[in-house]
């Protein structure tokens, strides 16, 4: 499902002294089945934007079309949202019951719900024996997985992830992102990632949208966005480590390393290739 965003604007507390413009005139098209990232500093309007993509807030102006539909009551369950710290929304007695909440709201049969719960637990890597445990007795990382499974069990065609890895340890961060990426590939699920973590955006996203003070200031492939070091600084952002290091190496190298080294792995390979090809 293609997502078309046109002239999207949102004002908080319109008509009071507290009025604040959270989002101004954002246009963007997200192709069906793509993996995109929204980046920007705190208060740049990222969360407001995804709330409107998910149909949870009505824009002050402009609209969001998902697969050509702008009536969100017809899109129930087709756009899944994992909010920041989703483990704070757990409420059921057992892990399985919590994951089943979404599918049950979709009116599926008990049999189908059970199947989906098991499937979603597999997707996020939760061992089966946790199904009957209370979600409140799990570790933080496991609680996060339960909450994400609760969204995935609705089998959304579009998955919105708002800072999904915040507060996880590095290994947990990587594992979660890899799992989401695999799901994206296998189910051709559109993924919209909102992140502070430039590494994540550079590694997984095909396209990146940069928001600054509620406005869209740049959009493009990570390679192009993350080579604009000066602009990034102005927006309160920083390129990931690999392109930054490559940039500094290139000041001393002739010929320079190839463009578009977004991840540490890419950079490592390029440097190794250079090392092996050096004149003896």
């Amino acid at each position, binding site marked *: 499902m293609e997502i078309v965003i046109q002239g999207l604007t949102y004002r*908080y*507390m*319109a008509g*009071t*002294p*507290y009025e604040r413009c959270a989002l101004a005139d954002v246009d963007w098209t997200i192709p069906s089945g793509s993996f995109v990232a929204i980046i920007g500093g705190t208060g740049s309007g990222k969360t407001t934007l995804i*709330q409107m993509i*998910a149909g*949870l*807030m*009505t824009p002050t102006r402009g609209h969001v079309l998902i697969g050509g539909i702008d009536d969100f009551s017809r899109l*129930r*369950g087709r*756009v*899944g*949202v994992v*909010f920041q710290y*989703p483990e*704070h*929304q*757990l*409420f059921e007695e057992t892990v399985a019951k919590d994951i089943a*909440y*979404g599918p049950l*709201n*979709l009116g599926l049969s008990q049999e189908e719900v059970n199947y989906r719960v098991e499937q979603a637990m597999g997707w996020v890597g939760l061992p089966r024996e946790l199904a009957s445990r209370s979600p*409140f007795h799990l570790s933080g990382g496991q609680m996060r997985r339960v909450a994400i499974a*609760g*969204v995935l069990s*609705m089998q959304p065609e579009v998955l919105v992830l708002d800072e999904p890895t915040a507060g996880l340890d590095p290994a947990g961060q990587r594992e979660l992102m890899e799992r989401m990426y695999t799901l994206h590939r296998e189910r051709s699920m559109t993924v919209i990632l909102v992140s502070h973590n430039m590494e994540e955006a550079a590694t997984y996203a095909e396209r990146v949208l940069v928001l600054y003070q509620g406005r869209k200031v740049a959009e493009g492939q990570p390679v192009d966005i993350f080579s604009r070091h000066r602009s990034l600084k102005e927006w309160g952002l920083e390129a990931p480590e690999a392109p930054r290091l490559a940039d500094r190496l290139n000041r001393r190298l002739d010929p320079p390393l190839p463009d578009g080294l977004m991840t540490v792995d890419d950079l490592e390979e390029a440097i190794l290739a250079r090392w092996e090809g050096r004149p003896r």
Partner: protein
Amino acid sequence: MSRLNHPVIGQYIPADSFLHRLDPRAKLVFVFVFMMIVFLAKNAAGYSLLVGVALSGVLLSRIPLPMILRGIKPVLYLIILTALLHLGMTRGGDVWWELGPITVYEQGVVQATVISLRFLILVLMGTLLTLTTSPMELTDGLERLLCPLTRVGVPAQDLALMMSIALRFIPTLWEEMDKIMMAQRARGADFDSGHLLRRVKSYIPVLIPLFISAFRRAEELALAMEARGYRGGKGRTRIRELRWKKEDTILLVVLAVLSISLWWLRG
């Protein structure tokens, strides 16, 4: 859809007006006594006096009328309902109007007017107090007013602290609830349809996470306060000192004059 779009009833509106500058103690005493003497008014003269005071309050607050009305709006339905009940139920005097089983008597109209007027004045004064006094000032004022009671064992300082923490966390919890509702809505929760029991039940997935987060916040706050050396109210100095000014004395004189006039008009 977002709750953040609607200012909470009676939320403080910063401005620089006569009412804003008054000492919170004076305002608290005034509103407290005023709410009791409202019931002294028994005739048109008494009510005109009360309405006059309320309207001068509105003028002195320099808060735009629509904003005050917005604060009163939720209570307005209650007032209308009470007025309607009085219209239909109170008997006495001449019959003014008859429609099927409903008969409206003269006394009904009088009662409905008096009750709604009284109600309106009470709510208006309460709203004015909270609109022109920040929660901090309110608790400071209350603490000072309760101070004499510490001698008979009322923990005035602790009470004031509890109150300011409660007030401080209303918007936070409100926001939190908004977030949780949004998340559950994204999981297909429906808070607006079905019969009453079902609707109440639909809030369980909101209330449980909300309570858990409230407890977590409370624990964290207690820890943070202890870490910063809070050991109860004893010996604490304050950063904002309350200052009793000439205007505050004038306010209390007005209050006294008002009470005596109402007592006198009553006869």
